[in-house]
Structure formats: structure tokens, C-alpha cells
């Protein structure tokens, strides 16, 4: 009999009827222990009086900060504990939806291995709990001793919190903080500057378009706002009204859902964009204005169809059809992102893709591209502090200082997310980590300052541009913070004060409120004809008598949200002629494969479950089967059927991927969707610690990457397009077998037979 064991050797704690049946079944081998946990018979008088009835659900509004999308959520709390996250139906970005990562914020909050008290490395070399005062003292002394040699890494996606770190840097006298953000975001901003003249990430109006070509942007995976873009995709494709065409080397979830998938050779996305431009220009469907705007950027002749097909490794007929459909579409739209922007030629590719919107007259109209506008609360908090640096600046700074100096890392894990930093961390005099977990960075830190997670803290977020409408979302804490964890903004302020350069606010909330107050004053002063950049649109302050009332009203209302009328086309910053730095991707040489050995193009990607690695510590996400490979728990390498046959690799076999500096071993998953000559590996595995569910689970694909590879023209690290070798090592040992979702109707990947018209369950 199978049932009735306690879990992992623990005795059962209750006796029910079922247990008696088991006793009968066990026939005399009745060794079950009978006792009842006394907790079940206890009922607690809480300490504090509450307005909510005992056991009643109280729903509190909050903002999901798991990524920069800014989804508004409702958190169900019962007796002051958070139970469930649901999308706020009126949410500015998400309209009621939440993604898998968003749900799992609860397991981040209640993770058994959270850091909940400040720690400092003692004389024994181990991290030991200390008081906040001691921890801040140690950290501040180190910073104040060498502000010039201090490097700040701020993981805040954007908005006010990043602004606060910038202000911190300027006040304390350190160089500007490094903004830890997705690599393609940096590239996209630069590509948009080249194509449209304005250096903001564009907002794409998928929902009202009728033909969307996504050049690498994995808009239904983990990119920008999966919830918003998923809903927009559903609207786009409802009743087969519109189409999504995905141009991407890897078969992402977006490619899987696209009406058409063009698996171009990795790194040739920009070439394809130029080839498409050539076909469009020749089709006669392009207006004079569009042609002029485009040719101002790309005066050279675009490559012809044959050359494009050759370089991209795509059938010419498919490219031709794509161009024809684009030309016919009423509201076409081209977006760029993801792996297309993460190669060395990412900026050129991104600009070429975005420039197609000029050709198609898709800029600033319904179903087209808009500027990624915001209310500028990052700058409002930053004051006149210098702009934040892109992620790759971290490597440069560390290399420049020979590694010595002080590192302050807030809510980021650069040691896990970027290769080649180990030595610099080793040499750093003091590493200060503001983190809720012992991630790879905090593990090496000398001082760990515990920070609050999403639901525990006051939030002020400027969402990533998805609607083209500016917004500042504000929310109060939902539950009490665990242990001694503090708001990362408050930590920054306390650090500055301890270093003797106090900022003008006691806390992050006060900082945001003061910025709101200043914005009100500037708007009031500017009057109706708003020309002051510090002023908000006048309609937003209408009805507020004074600054205090305005701040109060804004926080009560959950922030400031603009209107559709505030959407606008990108405004060229006085662009007279070709912006400096534009490169025709067709003029770049094709990436050459090293001679002699067969090598594969590595495509690291963010999976739905692990994201950039932050999802790895949540059991829900670890045990979530990846929708395409169906793998749970751990990392995998996606290998194409043809390549696998040639290498003799079967699903589950352990393969070794060898890069220039390192090698990793992981199970292979053979899929019919992988482009021959490429291999996909999810990022986010292989943490040294990061809690019990992530520790040592999977491998870190970032270790294969070349630390010196950069996206040309952007301060981003080029993670796409690295060449690796693949060898088959062995059939997996039992403990190495990938955990593949076994249950199901699926037999040999066939669609189950036996569909029948629905009768609604009627008898």
C-alpha cells in the first residue's frame, strides 16, 4: 500500500478515518504513531486590534515590481498575511492579468531563506548578524573613505528609486550609479535614438495594428510587459483580424504563437530589415515622405532579395511574401528587441528594424510606434545628478580600478548575470549588498543589508513604456516587513546620512512626495501654456487647491496616470541629418564561424519561469514546466532534431557546451523547432546559493560568454551569438535526468484524436 507515509520520515500527526482503513490494510503492522498536533486545538488572540473581521479577506492594491512593467495587483490578505496575488482589473498596464513570475512574488516574500537581519563579515570570515547601526556604520565608513573608488549598481528597473540612487551618488561624491537592466533595453534606446531621434524605448500599439513584424522582440515571453503585450496580441489576432510575424533565430514562445515565424540566422536580423526595406521601396507602396525619411538614414542601396535570403538563411519566397503583406497592411508595425539586439551588431539591427516604421508611416499613428514618455520622476528625484550608466560600465569601472574600491549593489546580482566579474569582486575592498537573499553577489559581500520585497514596501514606479501614456504608480505596503528588512530607498538615505552627506529626505516615501509637491508647484507656476519641462500636464493638477492636497490625492488614487491624448510620436532632438553612429547592417560582414571545428551559435534566453534568474528561488516556478521544452527544475540545452541526429544526441543526454573560457554540462532537449547550427540555453540557473530551491540547481550559461564582447555603440554586453562546441557526454544518470513533464495526452507529439463538437455536457 502506497499511501499513508508521513513525508520524509515524519510521523503523521492526525488520525482520521482513512488512517484506520490503513491500519486494517497494514494488518497488524500498525506502527503508525498516534498523536495530534496541539496547534490545531489552539486559537490565537492577536496582539493588535484590526478593523477587518477575523479570517476575512482584505484585498489591498499593490504594484508588482518583479519586472519593470508596473502591473497593478490586488493582494488578498487574511489576518495580515498575504495569500494571493491577482491582477487589478483596472490596472493601467495589465487590466486584470498577472504572469507566472508576478504570482510568485508571494514565495519571495515568505521564502524560508530570506535575509531578514543585517549581516557583516566578522573576523572569522563568516557573515554574522549585526545591528542596523553597526552595518550602516561599516558600509558608510568604507564609502566615505573612498567615494571616488565607489561603484554603485542599482537594480531598480527605472523611475524614482533609480533617481534616488543617482542623487545619492552625486551627494556622496561617487561616480553615477550603474543601472542594472536588461541588455536589450539599453540597445533599444540607442536604436530608437538613431531611427527616430529620441532616446527612449518606443511604445508599440499592437492591439490596434493589423500586421506586426517583431524583429526578435519576445513580446509573449519575458519582455517589457508580457501581460500587456499578451492582451494586445489577443486583440490583434482576434477573429484573425491581424497577424504577428516573428523574426527570431530561436523558437521562443512568441515565435510559437506567431502566425508566421522566420527563423533567421542569428545576427542577420538587421540584414533582413534592410532587405525588406529594399522590397518595400521597390513595391511602390511607400509614400514619398516615408521614403525620404528612410533614405536620409540609409542612403545606400539596400541588399537585393537573393542576398538577403542567402545571409538570413531563409527561403526568398517567404521574405517576398512578408514584404508584400507589409506593403498591403493598413496599419503595419515593426518592433525590435530580444536576441536581435543582443548580438554585437544589435544597435545596427535595431535601428534598421525600427526605421522600417518610417518607411511604413507607422510613427505616431494608431497601431504604430509611439515615444516612450514618462513624467520624469527619475530626474525629479535625481535633481541635477548625472545620468545612470549602462550595465557594461560596471565591467569597465572594475577593470579601471584594478578591482579595488567599494562596491554597493542594490537589488541586483551582477556576479550571476555577467561573466568575468569574479576577480574584480575578489579584489574589491568592501562589497555592500542590499538584498533580500544570499544571491551570488550577496554571498561575496562584506555587508549585507536586508531589503523589503514588493509587498512589504512603499512603491513608486514609472512603468516601462508599453502604452505610450505616461504614468507614475504609487502604492502603500500590503503586509508588515519581515524581520528587520528595510526599503532599499530608505537604506540609500540611511547610508548617505551615515556617510555624512545626508539627502534632504528622511525616507523614500517622503522623497517621492516632495517630488510630487515640487511638480505641483512647477505646474501651477507654468499655467496653461506649459513650457516648463518640470511642469506636469495641467489637467493632472486640476481641482487640487495646494501641493499638500495634490500629494495626498495622488497617493490615495494610486498615482498619476496620463491620458491617450498624451501619446506622441518620438520628437527628433534637432536632427539635422544622419545621426552620428548609424551603421547599415548590410555593410557589416557576416559573423564567421571558426574554421576546423563544428560550432554552434549560443542563444541565451530568458525563460518564463526563471526570468533573468530572479525566479529561480521560488518552488512554484522551478516546478513549472517550461511551455516549450516542458522541463521543470534546472537548465537545459535546446538542440535541433537534425543536429541531434548528427551528434548522436537524444533528449536527456548530458552534453557539454564549450565556450572560449568555460564549459558547462547540462541535459539536452531535442526539439524540431531549433534552427540547425544554434543552441538555446535559458539564463537564470546555477546559483551558488539564493535559497534552498535555487542552490546549485541547473547551470549558469553566462559563464560561457565572452566578458569583453559588447554591442557596438551601446554600453551593453553582447550575450547573443557566441560560438560554442557541443559534445555528447553520456546517457544521464538517474539523478541527472532532466525533469520533463511526463503526464499528458501527448503520444509522440501527436495531436490527440477524438475531437467532437461540444454538446455542453447535456445528457
Amino acid at each position: 500500500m502506497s499511501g499513508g507515509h508521513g513525508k520524509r520520515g515524519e510521523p503523521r500527526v492526525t488520525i482520521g478515518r482513512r488512517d484506520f482503513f490503513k491500519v486494517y490494510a497494514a494488518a497488524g503492522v500498525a506502527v503508525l504513531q498516534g498523536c495530534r498536533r496541539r496547534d490545531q486545538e489552539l486559537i490565537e488572540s492577536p496582539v493588535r486590534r484590526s478593523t477587518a473581521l477575523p479570517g476575512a479577506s482584505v484585498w489591498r492594491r499593490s504594484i508588482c515590481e518583479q519586472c519593470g512593467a508596473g502591473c497593478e495587483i490586488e493582494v488578498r490578505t487574511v489576518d495580515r498575511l498575504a495569500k494571493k496575488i491577482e491582477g487589478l482589473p483596472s490596472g493601467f498596464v495589465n487590466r486584470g492579468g498577472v504572469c507566472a513570475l508576478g504570482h510568485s512574488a508571494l514565495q519571495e516574500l515568505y521564502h524560508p531563506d530570506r535575509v531578514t537581519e543585517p549581516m557583516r563579515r566578522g573576523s572569522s570570515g563568516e557573515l554574522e548578524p549585526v545591528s542596523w547601526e553597526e552595518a550602516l556604520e561599516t558600509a558608510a565608513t568604507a564609502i566615505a573613505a573612498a567615494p571616488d573608488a565607489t561603484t554603485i549598481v542599482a537594480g531598480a528597473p527605472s523611475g524614482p528609486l533609480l533617481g534616488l540612487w543617482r542623487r545619492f551618488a552625486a551627494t556622496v561624491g561617487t561616480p553615477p550609479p550603474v543601472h542594472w537592466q536588461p541588455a536589450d533595453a539599453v540597445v533599444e534606446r540607442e536604436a530608437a535614438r538613431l531611427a527616430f531621434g529620441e532616446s527612449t524605448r518606443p511604445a508599440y500599439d499592437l492591439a490596434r495594428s493589423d500586421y506586426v513584424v517583431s524583429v526578435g522582440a519576445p513580446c509573449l515571453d519575458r519582455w517589457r510587459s508580457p501581460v500587456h503585450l499578451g492582451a494586445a496580441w489577443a486583440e490583434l489576432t482576434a477573429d484573425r483580424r491581424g497577424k504577428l510575424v516573428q523574426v527570431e533565430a530561436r523558437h521562443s514562445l512568441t515565435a510559437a504563437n506567431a502566425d508566421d515565424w522566420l527563423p533567421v540566422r542569428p545576427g542577420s536580423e538587421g540584414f533582413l530589415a534592410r532587405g525588406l526595406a529594399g522590397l518595400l521601396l521597390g513595391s511602390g507602396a511607400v509614400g514619398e515622405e516615408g521614403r525620404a525619411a528612410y533614405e536620409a538614414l540609409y542612403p545606400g542601396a539596400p541588399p537585393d532579395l537573393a542576398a538577403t535570403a542567402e545571409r538570413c538563411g531563409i527561403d526568398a519566397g517567404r521574405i517576398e511574401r512578408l514584404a508584400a503583406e507589409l506593403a498591403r497592411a493598413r496599419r503595419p508595425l515593426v518592433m525590435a528587441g530580444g536576441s536581435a539586439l543582443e548580438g554585437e551588431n544589435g544597435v545596427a539591427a535595431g535601428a534598421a528594424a525600427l526605421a522600417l516604421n518610417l518607411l511604413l508611416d507607422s510613427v505616431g499613428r494608431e497601431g504604430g510606434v509611439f515615444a516612450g514618455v514618462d513624467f520624469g520622476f527619475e530626474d525629479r528625484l535625481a535633481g541635477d545628478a548625472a545620468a545612470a550608466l549602462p550595465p557594461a560600465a560596471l565591467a569597465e569601472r572594475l577593470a579601471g580600478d584594478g578591482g579595488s574600491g567599494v562596491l554597493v549593489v542594490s537589488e541586483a546580482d551582477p556576479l550571476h548575470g555577467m561573466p568575468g566579474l569574479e576577480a574584480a569582486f575578489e579584489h574589491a575592498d568592501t562589497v555592500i549588498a542590499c538584498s533580500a537573499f544570499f544571491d551570488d553577489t550577496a554571498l561575496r559581500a562584506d555587508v549585507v543589508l536586508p531589503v523589503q520585497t514588493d509587498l512589504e514596501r512603499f512603491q513608486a514606479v514609472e512603468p516601462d513604456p508599453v502604452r505610450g501614456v505616461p504614468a507614475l504608480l504609487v502604492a502603500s505596503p500590503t503586509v508588515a516587513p519581515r524581520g528587520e528588512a528595510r526599503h532599499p530607498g530608505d537604506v540609500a538615505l540611511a547610508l548617505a546620512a551615515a556617510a555624512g552627506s545626508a539627502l534632504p529626505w528622511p525616507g523614500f516615501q517622503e522623497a517621492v512626495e516632495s517630488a510630487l509637491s515640487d511638480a505641483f508647484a512647477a505646474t501651477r507656476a507654468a499655467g496653461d501654456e506649459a513650457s516648463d519641462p518640470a511642469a506636469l500636464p495641467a489637467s493632472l493638477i486640476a481641482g487640487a487647491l495646494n501641493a499638500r492636497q495634490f500629494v495626498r490625492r495622488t497617493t490615495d488614487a494610486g498615482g498619476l496616470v496620463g491620458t491617450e491624448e498624451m501619446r506622441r510620436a518620438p520628437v527628433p532632438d534637432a536632427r539635422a541629418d544622419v545621426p552620428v553612429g548609424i551603421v547599415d547592417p548590410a555593410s557589416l560582414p557576416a559573423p564567421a564561424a571558426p574554421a576546423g571545428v563544428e560550432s554552434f551559435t549560443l542563444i541565451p534566453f530568458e525563460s518564463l519561469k526563471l526570468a533573468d534568474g530572479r525566479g529561480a528561488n521560488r518552488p512554484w516556478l522551478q516546478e513549472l514546466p517550461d511551455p516549450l521544452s516542458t522541463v521543470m527544475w534546472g537548465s537545459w540545452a535546446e538542440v535541433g532534431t537534425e543536429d541531434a541526429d548528427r551528434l548522436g544526441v537524444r533528449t536527456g543526454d548530458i552534453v557539454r557546451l564549450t565556450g572560449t573560457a568555460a564549459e558547462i554540462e547540462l541535459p539536452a532537449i531535442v526539439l524540431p523547432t531549433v534552427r540547425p547550427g544554434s543552441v538555446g540555453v535559458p539564463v537564470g540557473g546555477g546559483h551558488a546559493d539564493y535559497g534552498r530551491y535555487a542552490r546549485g540547481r541547473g547551470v549558469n550559461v553566462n559563464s560561457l560568454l565572452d566578458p569583453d564582447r559588447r554591442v557596438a555603440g551601446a554600453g551593453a554586453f553582447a550575450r547573443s551569438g557566441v560560438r560554442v562546441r557541443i559534445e555528447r557526454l553520456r546517457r544521464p544518470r538517474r539523478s541527472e535526468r532532466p525533469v520533463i513533464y511526463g503526464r499528458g495526452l501527448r503520444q509522440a507529439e501527436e495531436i490527440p484524436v477524438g475531437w467532437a463538437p461540444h454538446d455542453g455536457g447535456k445528457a
Partner: protein
Amino acid sequence: MAEAQRRRLYPPGARPDCRCAGLPAGIWILGLALFACGPTQNLPTPEQPIAYDHQVHIEAGLECVRCHRGAEEGVHAGMPSVQSCAGCHRREIPDHPEVQKVMLANENREPILWAKVNVIPDSAMVHFNHRAHARAGIECLTCHGDVASMTVAEPVRNVADMGWCVECHRENEASDDCLECHR
């Protein structure tokens, strides 16, 4: 990761981490026999951490819902917070030795853990909804007995007796579907 361990006031003899040792086979057989005979009506009155007197409070004019705030409107009847007990007793007999225990708990910010009087074991996986019964006009008395005349509350009915629940549900034409309670 030592989170501030909450100190709690437990009823005598009850510690959540104390588990009985394995019982000898004889007791198992006895238990089996008892199980076969049906639930016993001889219900023990649990010892409480504080000798709270219901009768005195009712006579002083308090109603059930004053402290068990969820009894009519909530899913659970609930227990009053330490803060609200102390709120009244700051004026009323603050020096009484049992009241002192409450005042101490309030000072130390410790919850009080009362022993449940009417227990439906977790293993039954029953989700009882207080307000649904109040809505149907079932009086407190029906399940809890005349608590107003008790000193320390004592069980009068075995609330874990499913037959009794179902009987009442059928008499009152409430649903007797399993999922109504078990889920």
C-alpha cells in the same frame, strides 16, 4: 535568518512542538474500538491559559459579538485582540490576578493562545462558515450551549459529529452536498 521569535502564552501542558511518543498497540486497538462505537459525548473541557469567565462578562452587559466579532458577519467568530481586552481592563479590575495575565501579554506584545473548546479536527477538512449559519437564524446556543451561564466555556455538543450536522442541514433544507463543507 532568525526572525524575532514570538513568545506565546500557551494553555498548560500544550506546546506545539511536543508530540506524543508512539503509542503501544493495545491503545491502538482500544482506539479502534472507540472509533467503532461512534463519537463519545463525554467531552473534556480544555484548560485555558487564563481562567476567563463568560458569565461575568455577559452579566456585565457584553454581547457575544462584542468580542467574537465575526460570529454574525464573518466566516470565523474569532477571538478578541489582546489590545481590546486590555482596553477595557485598564479601567475594570486591573489588579485581578487573571486580568494581570492579559495586561502582561499586552505589555509584551504577545498573542494569547486559547485552547479551542469546539474542535473540528483538521483531518476532517471541513470549512465551517459562521455567518452562513447566523444568516440562517441558527442561534449560538444550538452548537455552543448556554455559554452565558458557563464560567470557563465547555463543549456541550460534539461539533465534529457529522451525522448531527447533516441532520440539521436536512431539517432546514440546507444543502447536504459534501462540498458544502469538505473541500
